[in-house]
């Protein structure tokens, strides 16, 4: 999209550059001398109280330019003394100079084309709009008049349906008269020329839109969907309403993709170069295309988060500031007590860990026991760093920091003016949230353990997010969480969820949905943090980071934390609690080894190794459900055949990610209709089948890492009635991963025994 750009001269002798979706709203704001939000400039960033500053001049620089350019102008803008003496020609020169890089790229893409610069920047449309001495200029008047559209047109519109008014365009020449005492939408039309009513309409609209955007990070298309569902009366005026909320500092206007300067490599030849990053998902952006929406020939768009709607240089990204929660100490929630844990019926091991996590939540902010890492899971640099230091450092050495993806983008996220306002949009270089790892063995009952944590945060007035990488897990968790918190509204979010735009203090979502939030939550719980697709996806880690408030807390749940996090645990860099025993108080089954030929060879010879067959017969005889994990999908079919021929008395099926009947087969397997299920790592987690034994064939395959071996082994012995399921690693080789998995399982059992969690 395109947006207007203007500057105001503030009374305290400096200039401020603003981007506007509807410059008429800004001009009215200016005429009423409501004052502009300015950073307080206090000592340290966090005391930075925004102030309102009155203006004495307003100059329109361009009525319409690519939004991304306007935003980068604003983000790079620095007030200079000589600006007081500038005329329009100087301002035009300034803009062309400030956008040098963008214009240069444009020139390269448009070989031989003339005058595109004028068309793109529309600098000739600028001019003085208002001064405190002379009042509104002719240009300002005509701007307001133009936007007014005239009473007559408004009257014509009165009789038309809502569809027509929406079709009128996003500029919203008329607003539906929804300001009735009862809040009922009347369907009448407010003409823009009717100043008083218009003002009121925009004011109310701004309030509603800001409330709907609280803690959100939405692209224009997403905002439109939200409006259609929740605030259809705002559709014709959304631009004005958003702009009004922006002026109040409640909504940040920015672009989906922005340039972040970074070093072009290491070593002496490294030169700074412009890199584009997606502000929503943090990914580097490489694709640039001509854009019919902003007119630029090289509008960058992000391919990484395309599935969530297209983020691009000229895409409007709106972020609403979240309401601050009163500090826990003063609230009614108070410090957590053991009694909080009673109602959940936790096992001793669960209770131990949950109470450690509660203590972590109750720690006063700003004094976490362990150093934090702003990069979340997998981040590479540890060690505490005072916030003030890193800010000063970033300012002085802009090139020194941006090697890490989050850093290079974060400072630009905040608009200078709205920074720190109303406790929401944070200043650059915010400290990382503190993190806590709940390392709970498979079958420990993680879900029950998070209930007291959710409860505590909700009681202290906070917002809670429970995120998990997979949609089927979300659907499985939803009823359990709903049951645990019957009086709390729960929004369940995933691709295609009908609750997408609903407001709730307790949210359960897939990790992808986190991209739609910004500084929204006081507690973010990430389940199965080492599972696909969250694990090793910096985009989702970035989204998780962004969704949490500065003062918020992270709790990670995993049975098999990634290597990096295990290292942090060993080095004491992350607070954690281990749940070493299952809820039923029996030790984890330790995998045993069978030496057999690779599956490939067995299939070629059409023979089942006798050692494997013997073990399978034992399992069949003890009436166990048998999981057989293989490393490759192509082995499933022939192996199932081979097994069927050998064990003709029982039903044997194979399933994989490519099987449409997977869900049914898993159900049949649980119901013991199917006795033997040949599958891949697709079923390594999230499946609980009572009385099951696990066979992992080709356990030496490099497709099975330590984590997935532990997870697969964790399918056995989960029920109270059959806690001692059997696990077999069948392979010719004994690999590091297998050794590691066995070691991990044994050490958890040892800890559990020492702490007395085992029967």
């Amino acid at each position, binding site marked *: 999209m395109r947006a207007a750009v203007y500057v105001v001269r503030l009374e305290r002798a400096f200039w401020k550059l603003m981007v506007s979706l509807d410059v008429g709203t800004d001009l009215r704001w200016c005429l009423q001398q409501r004052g502009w939000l300015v950073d307080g400039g206090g000592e340290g960033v966090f005391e930075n109280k925004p102030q309102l500053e009155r203006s004495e001049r307003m100059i329109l620089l361009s009525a319409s330019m690519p939004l991304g350019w306007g935003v980068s102008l604003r983000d790079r803008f620095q007030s200079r003394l000589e600006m007081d003496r500038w005329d329009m020609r100087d301002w035009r020169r300034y803009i062309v100079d400030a956008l040098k890089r963008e214009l240069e790229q444009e020139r390269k893409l448009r070989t031989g084309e003339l005058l595109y610069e004028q068309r793109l920047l529309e600098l000739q449309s600028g001019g003085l709009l208002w001064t405190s001495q002379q009042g509104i200029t002719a240009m300002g008047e005509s701007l307001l008049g133009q936007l007014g559209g005239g009473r007559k047109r408004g009257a014509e519109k009165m009789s038309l349906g809502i569809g027509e008014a929406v079709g009128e365009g996003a500029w919203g020449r008329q607003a539906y008269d929804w300001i009735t005492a009862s809040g009922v939408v009347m369907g009448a039309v407010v003409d823009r020329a009717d100043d008083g009513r218009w003002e009121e309409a925009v004011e109310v609209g701004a309030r509603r839109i800001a409330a709907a955007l609280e803690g959100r990070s939405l692209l224009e298309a997403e905002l439109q969907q939200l409006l259609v569902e929740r605030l259809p009366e705002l559709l014709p005026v959304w631009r004005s309403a958003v702009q009004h909320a922006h002026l109040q500092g409640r909504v940040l206007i920015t672009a989906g993709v922005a340039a972040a300067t970074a070093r072009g490599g290491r070593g002496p030849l490294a030169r700074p170069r412009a890199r584009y990053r997606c502000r929503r998902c943090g990914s580097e952006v490489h694709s640039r295309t001509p854009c019919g*929406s902003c007119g630029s020939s090289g509008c960058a768009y992000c391919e990484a988060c395309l599935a969530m709607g297209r983020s691009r240089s000229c895409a409007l990204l709106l972020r609403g500031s979240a309401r601050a929660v009163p500090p826990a100490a003063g609230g009614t929630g108070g410090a957590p007590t053991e009694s909080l844990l009673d109602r959940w019926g936790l096992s001793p091991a669960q209770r131990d860990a949950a109470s450690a996590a509660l203590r972590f939540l109750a720690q006063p902010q700003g004094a976490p026991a362990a150093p934090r890492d702003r990069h979340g899971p997998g981040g590479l640099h540890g060690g505490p760093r005072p916030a003030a230091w890193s800010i000063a450092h970033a300012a002085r050495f802009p090139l020194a920091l941006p090697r890490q993806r989050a850093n290079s983008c974060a400072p630009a996220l905040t608009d200078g003016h709205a920074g720190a306002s109303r406790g929401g949009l944070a200043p650059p270089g915010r400290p990382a949230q503190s993190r806590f790892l709940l390392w709970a063995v498979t079958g420990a009952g993680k879900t029950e353990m998070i209930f007291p944590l959710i409860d505590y945060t909700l009681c202290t007035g906070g917002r809670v997010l429970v995120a998990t990488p997979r949609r089927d897990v979300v659907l499985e968790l939803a009823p359990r969480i709903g049951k645990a918190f019957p009086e709390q509204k729960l929004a369940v979010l995933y691709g295609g969820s009908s609750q997408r735009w609903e407001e709730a203090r307790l949210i359960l979502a897939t990790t992808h949905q986190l991209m739609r939030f910004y500084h929204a939550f006081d507690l973010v719980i990430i389940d199965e943090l080492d599972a696909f697709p969250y694990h090793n996806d910096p985009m989702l880690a970035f989204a998780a980071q962004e969704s949490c408030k500065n003062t918020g807390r992270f709790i990670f749940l995993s049975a098999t934390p990634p290597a990096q996090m295990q290292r942090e645990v060993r080095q004491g860099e992350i607070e954690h609690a281990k749940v070493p025993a299952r809820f039923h108080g029996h030790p984890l089954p330790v995998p045993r080894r069978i030496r057999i030929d690779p599956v490939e060879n067995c299939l070629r010879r059409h023979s089942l190794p006798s050692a494997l067959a013997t073990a399978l017969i034992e399992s069949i005889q003890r009436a166990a459900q048998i999981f057989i994990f293989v490393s490759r999908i192509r082995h499933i079919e022939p192996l199932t055949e081979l097994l069927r021929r050998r064990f003709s008395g029982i039903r044997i099926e194979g399933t994989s990610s490519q099987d449409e009947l997977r869900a049914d087969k898993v159900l049949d397997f649980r119901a013991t209709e199917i006795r033997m299920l040949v599958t891949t790592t697709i079923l390594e987690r999230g499946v609980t089948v009572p009385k099951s034994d696990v066979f992992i064939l080709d356990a030496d395959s490099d497709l099975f890492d330590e984590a997935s071996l532990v997870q697969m082994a964790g399918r056995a012995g989960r029920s109270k009635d059959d806690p001692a399921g059997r696990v077999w690693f069948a392979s010719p080789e004994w690999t590091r991963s297998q050794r590691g998995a066995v070691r991990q399982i044994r050490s958890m059992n040892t800890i559990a025994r020492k702490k007395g969690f085992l029967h």
Partner: protein
Amino acid sequence: MSWKDILSSSLHQLLAPSTQTCLTCGKMIRSGGCGVNGFTEICAACYVSIPWITVPRCPVCGRAVGCPDCSRAGQAERYFQINRSVVQYNAAMREWLAQYKFRGRESLGPLFAQMMKLAMRGMLKELSDRSGVSRGFFDGITFVPVSEARMLERGFNQSRTLAYGAANVAKAPVLELLERSRHTEKQSFKNRKQRLLELKGVFKPVPDAAGKLEKVFLAQPYSLSPVRLLLVDDVYTTGSTVDTCALALHDICGKLGRSAEIYSVTWARS
């Protein structure tokens, strides 16, 4: 520097075999793709899965299977000569187009353009066999426009990309001649009659359409033969869009005192 760093360093990358991801299925493939017919971005499996229409069964609309629409007796006048399409519109192609058009994955654009080129070669050969005109069969290429609102939202017109792909082979200028006066709802849910009704008057000439065409006419000032224009669209379903646009193109040419022959090529035929 740990081993991990070394393994992920650029030095190590130099020694690794060069790979890329397949544009359509996302799997790691060797760089250069399948390489068949200049398709360097997709893997062999994806290339093979493309349901090309090499021999159209219906001589009019280019459908690969028998076509009741065109053979129906007593049907209304048609404003275009023939249509040819690149692929059959199956589930996989629908997904490709959806990725490109609705999700906005513009990196698929070059692939689509490449597919158009291939189909254009076939179409030109067929036309030259029939008419004897071997070079410069088309005087100009134009495409089905999107509405302004759609353009602002989406940022591009998929038919325009396809038109440039076709122009590359047909060696004719791409002319932007039409505009969409209003936005129409998605066509996929309507029958033929509803479509025709709704499309009435939707396509208008752009303000300087006549000027653009006159330049074409200048190239062959005394010719009495009709102007041959190629119209490009993404999907041909009932032919109503193509027909309505063709009518609008006839109008423009008629006002300039020239008769026209409109041909159509689409990326998919449903």
